[in-house]
């Protein structure tokens, strides 16, 4: 199981702040995004579209090639706009 988190515009679009999900071991961020997009509807729009989403694995920015392991915390969000 991994812990998934969604923030800001993405959270509102999906109508979800996060979930627990069972994933295959060694799956990449990119493969996880494809898996989420396969749910269709807003999930396809957000995860397959050109939304320039950012990902963090265990609270550190991660490239789409990063591998995810059981127990990881994976977050998706739009480009940040603080400061």
């Amino acid at each position: 199981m991994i812990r998934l988190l969604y923030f800001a515009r993405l959270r509102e679009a999906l109508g979800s702040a996060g979930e627990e999900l069972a994933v295959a071991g060694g799956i990449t961020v990119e493969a996880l995004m494809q898996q989420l997009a396969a749910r269709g509807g807003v999930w396809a729009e957000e995860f397959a579209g050109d939304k320039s989403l950012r990902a963090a694995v265990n609270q550190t920015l991660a490239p789409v090639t990063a591998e995810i392991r059981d127990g990881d915390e994976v977050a998706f969000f739009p480009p940040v706009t603080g400061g």
Partner: protein
Amino acid sequence: MTIRVQTEDFDAGAEINRLRLQRPDIGAVAAFIGQVRDLNQGDAVAGMTLEHYPGMTEKALEAIVQQASNRWDIMDALVIHRIGSLKPSDQIVLVAVAGAHRGEAFHACEFIMDYLKTEAPFWKKEQTTNGERWVDARASDDAARARWHKA
């Protein structure tokens, strides 16, 4: 190094004083305050809500300040960033850097702000006369950050 993410306002003057009076060999403090503008992209802004990613925010800010400390000879640095509901002229962020001389303090302070703007997980949602909207990331912020790779 001090990193704080908080709902409450802060007293920038008191924070800067605390930083600069820590060590008598400090000669320079560079500081930056970001505040809510009443206008963005041509629309009047009545207020905004700042969302963040608890846990990652602090980690990201610490990593940014650590990078600045590795790169410049600075003595201490402070980052305070607010979350929650803010109105125009409310303070959003304070970055202050103390060092022996001004050049290092200035550069480290600007570096921290440029990285905070592009790597720290905060998101602004504005209340405008046309309703609520998420603020878009600015290309100029990516450009500002990219400058530091060349130097």
